[in-house]
């Protein structure tokens, strides 16, 4: 590994900071650690970057500890590329599969002869004389010991003993105690000539069955992470970069900010950047969910992970190779998998005491049989106790939620839905009301020219628009851009102004094709000695609050036109709301629009007027959400994450539309990548399906143990069968989790 500065940076999430002094304290705490070259902490982003010169193994733990000692909480964020490497590198998975397969073969190779001997013994040594069978029993024992120390049984036994040593309970411990009890029982039985105590074959079968189970589980878990590794695989490993005037192929993590990177047909964009030459058609589905390729030419931004459908271009990298959109997405997905849901916490609590409880039940079973059973009581007790130990399955409990969460994050990410953590998805599954902040969600959030009212000044509509577009040609303002776009849509040639001068927030003046053009508010026009035709000023007073606004245009000192702009509804808005309605979710709308406009829009969308809050200021939006959360449970708010960040955090679930460049919206519990409100309905469906499967899994895991343990304790279930049942119960949980993609697809179809 080359050791440039980037490789040795550790990213931390730091929680609990409120002001600049906190930042100081945390930075000081971090810098006081040996091996830290530099540390910088960001209050707003709640993050810290630590430059490391030497990395002791426990280094990260010490970093976290120092932050906690300073009175804050911290966790390590994974570095983007490392994460991708981890996910795309299936050699790890293949290696683990290979190991499990080998263990499986060895286990069967040793266990089958032991089982075979069990049935052959009475044939070779007829008459059931235990003393005569001793050589055969010894052979069984030798094979069993080989199995216990082989790569098949070894890890299980070692794991069990280690758990015993640390006084923690796990699956291995139960198996180990079961197997060892069976072995000791068999040993005693062989010499005491008490055949009913001998369970060598059961011990062997338990180990073999556990090996089979682990192999199948590994295989299926590989499949469950498939969706995410597919995403991670989109991250290219190499790119053509201009170095010293020549194109060179370099690894992606060597790309630096401002490097020129070549994009060719079929390639995946390696870093976020801006096109400086050429043009390409990009498949941005991975980030936007939009399957139609999009044309991007000079000046357009491109995001890592998108694919070049056709064309060729050179981009200038907007950051290092490891800071792209895709990396942030992957980091977010990982974070989503780490969080624990409420249900998982319950399961974990149960699993924590589970093993101790099972051991206790096993002991009680053994003693009860011995004391209250018949002549064979102790022998039967041993058998039943072993069965109890191996039938109990903490695994199913432990796997119930994470397997579903893992599958859910993959399914959601594929559609551009990125929950901040697993709990966010769980909460979303319970919501009953969605409050939309109209701008940027139901509408595109970018103004468009609605109408041009031409005054009697000798210029027709196209000419007015052409001159206005010329004046605004280099404008970065959304309204200016809307005017230029409108001109382009009418296929008007946009002239280059001979000169122009803009004043931020007010307007501009320009000389276009020999005409003096003034564009702006009525005040701006008057300041520029233009007499404003009062009747032509329509709803200009609404500029600040309304979605609709208008702007005035003067040509050669005379008020020539009023251009009306609006933030149009997204074409899919009504359909998206209808789909949510089918999920029995109530829709409310918040907007800064005037009441009449807001009600008209709501009517178009099928939102009842009593659920519309018009003329809402950011403060009012917060109050509205607070009141609603107090009144009813399960309130989600959807916003663009910019103007409504505070309100988003007040809702039970805050959902934000993120643009490609801004993947994780800080205030949101769930970020949506893509520009259709349909994603909200999709997210709800995924969340509900996820919650359902988690419930099923937990129900199964609890139910299984509740049924199986009594069966084992009463001796109905022999030890080998108990092991098989245990294996099946944990595989069932994984299999059930794998149903999620199909369940989601089916439910999505139902509401289409």
């Amino acid at each position, binding site marked *: 590994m080359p050791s440039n500065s980037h490789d040795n940076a550790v990213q931390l999430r730091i929680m609990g900071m409120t002001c600049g002094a906190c930042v100081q304290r945390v930075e000081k705490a971090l810098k006081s650690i040996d091996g830290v070259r530099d540390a910088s902490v960001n209050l707003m982003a709640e993050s810290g970057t630590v430059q490391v010169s030497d990395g002791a193994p426990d280094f990260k733990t010490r970093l976290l500890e120092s932050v906690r000692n300073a009175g804050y909480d911290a966790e390590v964020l994974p570095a983007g590329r490392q994460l991708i490497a981890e996910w795309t590198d299936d050699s790890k998975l293949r290696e683990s599969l290979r190991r499990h397969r080998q263990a499986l073969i060895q286990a069967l190779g040793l266990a089958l002869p032991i089982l075979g001997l069990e049935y052959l013994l009475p044939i070779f040594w007829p008459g059931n004389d235990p003393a005569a069978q001793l050589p055969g029993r010894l052979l069984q024992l030798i094979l069993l010991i080989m199995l216990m120390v082989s790569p098949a049984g070894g890890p299980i036994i070692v794991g069990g003993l280690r758990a015993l040593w640390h006084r923690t309970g796990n699956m291995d411990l139960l198996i180990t105690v079961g197997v060892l009890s069976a072995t000791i029982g068999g040993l005693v039985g062989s010499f005491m000539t008490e055949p009913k105590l001998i369970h060598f074959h059961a011990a062997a079968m338990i180990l073999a069955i556990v090996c089979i189970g682990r192999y199948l589980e590994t295989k299926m878990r590989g499949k469950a992470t498939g969706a995410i590794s597919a995403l991670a695989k989109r991250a290219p490993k190499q790119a053509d970069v201009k170095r010293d005037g020549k194109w060179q192929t370099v690894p992606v993590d060597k790309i630096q900010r401002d490097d020129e990177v070549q994009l060719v047909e079929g390639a995946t964009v390696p870093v976020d950047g801006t096109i400086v030459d050429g043009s390409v058609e990009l498949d941005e589905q991975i980030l936007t969910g939009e399957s139609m390729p999009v044309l991007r030419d*000079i000046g357009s931004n491109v995001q890592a992970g998108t694919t070049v459908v056709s064309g060729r271009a050179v981009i200038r990298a907007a950051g290092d190779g490891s800071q792209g959109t895709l990396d942030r997405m992957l980091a977010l997905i990982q974070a989503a998998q780490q969080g624990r849901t409420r249900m998982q916490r319950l399961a974990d609590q149960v699993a924590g005491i589970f093993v101790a409880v099972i051991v206790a039940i096993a002991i009680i079973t053994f003693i009860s049989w011995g004391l209250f059973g018949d002549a064979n009581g102790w022998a039967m007790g041993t058998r039943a106790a072993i069965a109890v130990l191996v039938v109990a399955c903490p695994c199913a409990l432990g796997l119930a939620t994470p397997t579903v969460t893992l599958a859910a994050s993959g399914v959601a990410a594929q559609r551009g839905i990125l929950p901040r953590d697993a709990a966010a998805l769980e909460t979303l599954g319970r919501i009953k009301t969605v409050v939309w902040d109209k701008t940027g969600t139901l509408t595109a959030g970018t103004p468009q020219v609605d109408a041009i009212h031409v005054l009697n000044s000798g210029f027709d509509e196209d000419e007015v628009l052409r001159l206005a577009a010329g004046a605004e040609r280099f404008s970065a303002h959304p309204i200016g851009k809307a005017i230029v776009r409108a001109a382009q849509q009418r296929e008007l040639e946009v002239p280059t102004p001979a000169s122009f001068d803009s004043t931020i927030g007010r307007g501009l003046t320009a000389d276009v094709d020999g005409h003096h053009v003034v564009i702006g508010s009525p005040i701006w026009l008057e300041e520029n000695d233009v007499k404003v035709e009062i009747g032509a000023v329509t709803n200009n007073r609404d500029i600040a609050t309304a979605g609709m606004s208008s702007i005035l245009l003067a040509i050669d000192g005379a008020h020539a036109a009023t251009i009306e702009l609006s933030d149009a509804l997204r074409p899919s808005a009504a359909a998206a709301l209808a789909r949510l309605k089918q999920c029995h979710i109530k829709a409310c709308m918040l907007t800064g629009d005037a009441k009449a406009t807001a009600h008209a829009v709501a009517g178009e969308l099928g939102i009842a007027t009593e659920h519309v809050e018009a003329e809402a200021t950011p403060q009012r939006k917060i109050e509205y959400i607070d009141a609603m959360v107090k009144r009813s449970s399960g309130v989600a708010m959807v916003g663009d994450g910019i103007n409504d960040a505070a309100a988003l955090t007040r809702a039970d679930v805050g959902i934000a539309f993120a643009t490609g460049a801004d993947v994780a919206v800080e205030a949101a519990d769930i970020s949506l990548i893509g520009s259709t409100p349909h994603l909200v309905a999709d997210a709800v469906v995924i969340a509900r399906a996820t919650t359902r499967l988690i419930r099923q899994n937990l129900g199964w895991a609890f139910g299984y143990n509740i049924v199986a343990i009594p069966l084992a304790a009463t001796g109905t279930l022999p030890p080998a069968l108990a092991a098989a049942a245990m294996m099946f119960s944990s595989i069932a949980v994984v299999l059930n989790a794998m149903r999620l993609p199909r369940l989601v697809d089916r439910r999505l179809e139902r509401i289409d």
Partner: protein
Amino acid sequence: MATYQISIDGMHCENCVEKIQTALNATSSVSDCRVSLPDHRAVVTFENDQPDLAAAVEAIQRQGFSVKGYAAVAS
């Protein structure tokens, strides 16, 4: 020969000046340019009388700065 004064928003330091200077010099129609940090502007001389203002403005915008206006400077 035509000389224009372009007012630029967003310059903070010499590094910014350098970036704009380099970008403008790389623009084919530009024969000479002077970028001033305190005045927030660049004085650009074009090779011929039909100046390619779009190329110059886009070169600046591509560097992440915004152009607030421009006007011809009487020579």
